[in-house]
């Protein structure tokens, strides 16, 4: 019965989305207050209903109710509890339900906190959000219903894929989805603005926290996925330019651009039309990402044929949303008033520069991702676009962008002074040069690019610190007063500095771990020792072992430095017995920020084994940097000024209450 309640709730949601799609939007155009007023309550009702649906499905998973086809296909009574729960969204149907749940949750937030938004804007936004929800719920009901039942319930479920039984992988999709779906709100705002033919100043203030929130989660999601691939796949790589990764990276790039253009829009009333376009693009790329991953088109354009209904449906949705919103844009955008002139050398100029390069980079990634698919579909020719393509296109675009990062926050609005800005960055520049030279000195001339990369990373990091320091003028007014001012800086300033610092940290990790890593691939017999960047790695032998649902061969390794044991590593080759599924578990030891990484190949008959051992200097910085970026987003969101109409300094105390703008009263 609980399952059927969940199913009914989903159907009821669909009916509500249809009403939500039409009535408030019509009301907004006709300025009919009562019709507009239904948007908020309906958005909250939809949230409660989808939540009920989701709980019902989760219950079915927990109770191992195999009369539900989705549970039977994707669960197993012997799964550990935690993976029964994560199994809810570990499959196509369930993940769509989660997608929709987040979608209506954000809609409900707009409905709940949006009391201080202009009524037509709120109604139209929720209406557009209703379109998106309607599309996805219909998709579920028509082709991917998680509540389909089986008349004669089997006694056992089908799936125990061990690779999916991993906590990193379990958390990864929800984070990505919050990111993707967060951009749906900015999309809805953008389309609503186009429908109403007007963009209010409140628009930018509303769009920015949503962008920040979505961006924050997307950053964490991508980072987590990358770390998962690094330790679980056993190849030592953390980014493969795989289409699935690109699918999440493109909205991130576009979202980063939007984050910056929204600042210009808010402060200077400029770049309105551009920001609206970015909002449409970003969500379109999120949809494209969902489409690419969900339709099976990535394994092959021909996988479409396996389940044509799903593929075609989602393609039609995609065309409707992207095509529809772009046509609306072409038609309505000229109505939006342009404003705010600025000199090329100004904060606005710097942000435009940022947008230009980020957009170009997004296009490069998009071409690299879609070109093989398009070529295959049109000519049947099979090609692969791998890392070399992206290194050649994406890499060069990032360099000028990173060089410009420290200038952005330091240049003044409207008319900037490049010379004055440079003076404030002298120290950062000096540090960057110093680090470049030190790296040259340590590693010699054989890797020319690497020291420059290190210098660039230091430049970005030092530049973000310089911004904060010079802002409060510590040098002039002394440390004590400077500290007080530091505390008084607005959250957005801290956010900018932290996130930019994080970019530098990530770049540093990428450069050092790529350029200075030491890789040894060899066959080792027990007792053999190999030197990896000054660490002596000894293979002590292979021992079989047994886990709850797998058997494994564990390789025992000892790491010594100067004869002193500093770590023991136990990489293993696992075989999950139920499905005869082999996996590789890497052995990783973290030394402050660097890591030693060992993974195993096939054992030989004589007791020796193929080993791949790496020393990856400073590699953890890659992920630590992303944490800084996410933290920067949190600081920015906490900025009181983002909360529209929030009363003046008296309210300063509730600075920490997070993403959602507070109501007016």
């Amino acid at each position, binding site marked *: 019965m609980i399952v059927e309640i969940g199913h009914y709730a989903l159907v009821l949601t669909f009916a509500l989305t249809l009403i939500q799609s039409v009535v408030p939007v019509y009301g907004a155009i006709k300025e009919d207050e009562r019709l507009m007023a239904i948007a908020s309550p309906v958005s909250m009702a939809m949230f409660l209903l989808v939540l009920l649906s989701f709980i019902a499905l989760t219950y079915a998973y927990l109770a191992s109710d195999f009369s539900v086809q989705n549970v039977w296909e994707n669960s197993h009574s012997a799964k550990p509890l935690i993976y029964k729960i994560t199994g809810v969204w570990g499959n196509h149907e369930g993940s769509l339900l989660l997608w929709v749940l987040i979608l209506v949750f954000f809609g409900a937030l707009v409905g709940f906190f949006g009391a201080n938004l202009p009524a037509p804007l709120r109604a139209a936004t929720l209406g557009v959000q209703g379109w998106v929800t309607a599309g996805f719920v219909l998709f579920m009901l028509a082709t991917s219903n998680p509540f389909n039942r089986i008349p004669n319930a089997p006694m056992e479920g089908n799936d125990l894929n061990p690779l999916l039984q991993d906590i990193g992988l379990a958390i990864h999709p929800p984070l990505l989805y919050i990111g993707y779906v967060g951009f749906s709100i900015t999309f809805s705002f953008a389309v609503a603005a186009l429908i109403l033919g007007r963009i209010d100043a409140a628009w930018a203030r509303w769009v920015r926290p949503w962008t920040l929130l979505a961006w924050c989660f997307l950053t964490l999601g991508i980072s987590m996925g990358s770390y998962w691939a690094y330790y679980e796949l056993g190849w030592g790589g953390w980014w493969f330019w795989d289409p699935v990764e690109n699918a999440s990276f493109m909205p991130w790039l576009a979202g980063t651009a939007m984050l910056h253009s929204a600042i210009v829009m808010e402060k200077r009333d400029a770049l309105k039309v551009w920001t609206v376009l970015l909002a449409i693009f970003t969500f379109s790329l999120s949809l494209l990402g969902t489409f690419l991953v969900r339709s099976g088109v990535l394994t092959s354009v021909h996988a479409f044929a396996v389940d044509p209904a799903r593929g075609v449906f989602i393609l039609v949705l995609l065309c409707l949303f992207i095509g529809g919103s772009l046509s609306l844009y072409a038609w309505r955008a000229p109505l939006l008033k342009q404003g705010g002139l600025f000199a090329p050398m100004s904060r606005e100029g710097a942000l435009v520069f940022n947008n230009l390069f980020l957009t170009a980079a997004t296009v490069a990634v998009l071409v690299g991702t879609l070109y093989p698919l398009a070529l295959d579909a049109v000519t049947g020719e099979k090609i*692969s676009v791998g890392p070399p393509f992206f290194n*050649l296109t994406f890499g060069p675009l990032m360099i000028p962008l990173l060089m410009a990062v420290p200038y952005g926050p330091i240049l003044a609005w409207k008319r900037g002074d490049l010379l004055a800005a440079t003076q404030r960055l002298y120290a950062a520049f000096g540090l960057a040069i110093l680090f470049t030279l030190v790296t040259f000195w340590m590693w010699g001339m054989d890797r020319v690019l690497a020291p420059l990369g290190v210098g660039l990373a230091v430049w970005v990091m030092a530049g973000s610190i310089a911004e904060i320091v010079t802002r409060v003028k510590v040098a002039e007014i002394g440390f004590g007063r400077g500290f007080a001012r530091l505390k008084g800086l607005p959250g957005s300033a801290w956010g900018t500095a932290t996130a930019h610092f994080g970019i530098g940290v990530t770049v540093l990790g990428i450069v050092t771990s790529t350029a200075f890593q030491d890789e040894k691939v060899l066959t080792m017999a027990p007792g053999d020792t190999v030197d990896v960047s000054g660490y002596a790695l000894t293979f002590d032998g292979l021992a079989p072992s047994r886990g709850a649902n797998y058997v494994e061969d564990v390789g025992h390794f000892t790491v010594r430095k100067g004869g002193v044991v500093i770590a023991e590593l136990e990489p293993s080759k696992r075989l999950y017995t139920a499905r005869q599924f082999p996996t590789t578990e890497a052995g990783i030891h973290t030394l402050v920020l660097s890591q030693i990484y060992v993974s195993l190949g096939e054992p030989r008959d004589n007791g020796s084994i193929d080993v791949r051992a790496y020393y990856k200097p400073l590699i953890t910085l890659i992920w630590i940097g992303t944490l800084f970026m996410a933290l920067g987003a949190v600081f920015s969101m906490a900025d009181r000024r983002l909360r529209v109409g929030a009363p003046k300094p008296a309210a300063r105390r509730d600075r920490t209450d997070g993403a959602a703008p507070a109501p007016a009263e």
Partner: protein
Amino acid sequence: MTRKQRRLTIIGGAGAVLAAALALIMVALNDQIVFFQSPTDIAQEAVPHGQRIRLGGLVEAGTIERHENATVYFRVTDTENTVTVTYTGILPDLFREGQGVVTEGVIRPDGVFEADTVLAKHDENYIPVEVAEALKDKGHWQGEAQ
């Protein structure tokens, strides 16, 4: 600067960046993409030595030879022709005899394919799509149901 000049500077700069990005993409698409080939394509000498390609097929049973220092030799077949492949490194978990495989690398002058990447997807029943299609062309693949 006048209004017009400013606008021109910004538009000109934007145009230059986009043109540069486009040029990069075009160059990269010419040089950096890798074509998928079957052993038959290679046997017909359709592939110049030294060009990076992806080679796909089935790992012929009984041809896996393990040499010192994690180097492995095996033969990839599309049931008509075979190519000897050498690879140094850790093979993927699901690399097995008779299974589909995709390798990426270059053909050495002696005709041996030197791979630097070997892919076998994380799914036990997986035959890489390219391989499946190449085999289908040869009439040796019986479809998903098998």
